[in-house]
């Protein structure tokens, strides 16, 4: 069971809401909007989810809170008159005393309003009830947590910011069910940026990271991190090309966009072959026509072996004239594959370009009239090695634009680090999406750093599996 906050963005971060009956700390420096977040949680609970609430304040006058919240259009006194809310002002020791009493004031008020949600502003003061004994302070918080659990109240416990630099983790971070931190950070030197981060949420899977929030005229408004303005897309559409790796498809919003240019940026240590093979195998199974630029380190034999692991018989594919190769090297090729290979070794750049324009493209064009979809795997490292960076700079944008205009999907393999910042940034601009994979220590990561839907993903761990499709993103 979840208790939705009704706060834009926050429920998405929390996977739907706070676990019902949990006690969560909201930590932040002065001015971060902790009280606003607490009141908004209660107000939305009453208005949207039919869950009544209590706000307990130790330091602030309720009349100040009534007045402050009017700016968001929240009439708290009206909710009090309807017996849906209480803004209670009392001292920390009175609260604890009354909580401990059988049918004490706390219990009475919880029953009076049929309370499901509570906010306590702030537990920092509770800790100081017994200044001379840290143990006693812990006991008070432990008691508080147990009482809140007993009443099954979904609770937000506001706390002043703890020092981020100390190694000691405050006791309350362990005993409560979750921790939401609000921060104010310098932004573009002149401004300050508010960020919200969920650091702990017992029993929930959360969207990690610091998310920017603003205090708008409707209260706290969280804008999710790793997201830029995106197009509305249908993940089930035929225009989504599956990669064969379900977790990657999910991150891509259903798969690669048909007719787009994708770059796989990989460093020298990273293993990209399984990713490429999985995508190629999936396109073959879908009945696409494929064109592959072979690199010096991958022959057709090696590709055939990898495709076999992905349940594709390359002999059959070639026999059906579904896959073609551009070969820059003199390597032995079996007789049955000869018709699928275009040998371009010995062609200088001008002749190579002539071959593309007057032999290859016309062939693809005539094939496209038969309604077939083309998928191109372009090993840019091979082209840079064989034809030079200048050739790439001069022709890459034209080639990709031409492919895009014909509705072809292109997967380009490149190592941005090797080509240098300027070339990499040019290549990135020419592509609709960039998948970056790299090795750091003993782990390999994959991240979508550019996507046509605007999403930038977090870095995922790439895990090898024993079984098909051999890769999983965690």
């Amino acid at each position: 069971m979840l208790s939705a906050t009704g706060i834009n963005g926050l429920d998405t971060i929390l996977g739907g809401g706070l676990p019902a009956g949990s006690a969560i700390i909201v930590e932040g420096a002065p001015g971060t909007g902790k009280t606003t977040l607490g009141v908004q949680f209660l107000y939305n609970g009453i208005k949207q989810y039919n869950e009544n609430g209590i706000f307990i304040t130790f330091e602030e006058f309720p009349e100040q809170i009534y007045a402050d919240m009017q700016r968001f259009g929240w009439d708290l006194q009206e909710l009090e008159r309807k017996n849906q809310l209480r803004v209670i002002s009392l001292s920390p020791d009175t609260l604890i005393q009354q909580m401990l009493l059988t049918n004490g004031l706390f219990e009475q008020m919880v029953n009076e309003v049929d309370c499901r949600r509570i906010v306590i502003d702030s537990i920092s003061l509770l800790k100081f009830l017994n200044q001379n004994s840290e143990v006693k302070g812990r006991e008070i918080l432990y008691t508080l947590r147990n009482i809140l659990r007993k009443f099954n109240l979904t609770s937000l416990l506001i706390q002043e910011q703890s020092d981020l630099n100390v190694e000691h983790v405050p006791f309350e971070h362990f005993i409560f069910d979750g921790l939401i931190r609000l921060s104010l950070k310098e932004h573009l030197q002149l401004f300050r940026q508010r960020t919200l981060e969920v650091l702990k949420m017992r029993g929930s899977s959360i969207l990690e990271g610091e998310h920017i929030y603003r205090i708008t005229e409707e209260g706290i408004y969280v804008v999710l991190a790793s997201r830029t303005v995106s197009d509305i897309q249908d993940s089930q559409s035929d225009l989504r090309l599956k990669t064969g790796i379900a977790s990657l498809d999910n991150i891509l919003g259903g798969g690669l966009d048909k007719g787009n240019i994708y770059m796989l940026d990989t460093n020298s240590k990273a293993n990209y072959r399984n990713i490429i093979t999985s995508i190629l195998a999936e396109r073959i199974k879908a009945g696409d026509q494929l064109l592959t630029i072979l690199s010096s380190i991958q022959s057709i034999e090696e590709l055939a072996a990898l495709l076999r692991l992905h349940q594709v018989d390359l002999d059959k594919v070639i026999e059906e004239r579904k896959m073609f190769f551009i070969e820059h090297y003199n390597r032995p090729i079996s007789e049955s594959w000869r018709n699928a290979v275009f040998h371009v070794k010995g062609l200088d750049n001008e002749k190579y370009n002539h071959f593309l324009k007057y032999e290859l493209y016309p062939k693809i064009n005539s094939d496209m009239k038969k309604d077939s979809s083309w998928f191109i795997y372009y090993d840019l490292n091979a082209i840079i090695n064989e034809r030079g960076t200048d050739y790439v700079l001069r022709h890459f944008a034209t080639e990709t634009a031409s492919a895009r205009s014909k509705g072809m999907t292109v997967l380009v393999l490149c190592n941005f680090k090797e080509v240098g910042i300027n070339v990499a940034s040019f290549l990135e601009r020419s592509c609709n999406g960039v998948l970056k994979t790299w090795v750091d220590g003993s782990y390999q990561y994959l991240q979508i750093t550019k996507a046509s839907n605007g999403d930038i993903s977090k870095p995922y761990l790439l895990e090898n599996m024993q079984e098909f499709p051999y890769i999983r993103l965690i």
Partner: protein
Amino acid sequence: MVSKELVPLQMECTLLFQSNPYMIETAEGISKKLGRKVDDILPIIDQLENQGILQMLGDEFSPLYRYKEPKIIQDIDFSEEVDSI
């Protein structure tokens, strides 16, 4: 507008509870909130309790006070009458 300092203490205390109807306080707490001496506040609290405006909770040794909301609340606007005087 009349300055709060000029309003008698009883009125200050009543207003405090009326504006914050779910406040629960000790005499010391009320004195801190009003910025008045506890000794001055104690007789006022007694008076308000006798008048049924405040309700005492807990025992005599650690009494707490809360507002006892009247059964009927009515806003009366005297401004027109005042203007005609």
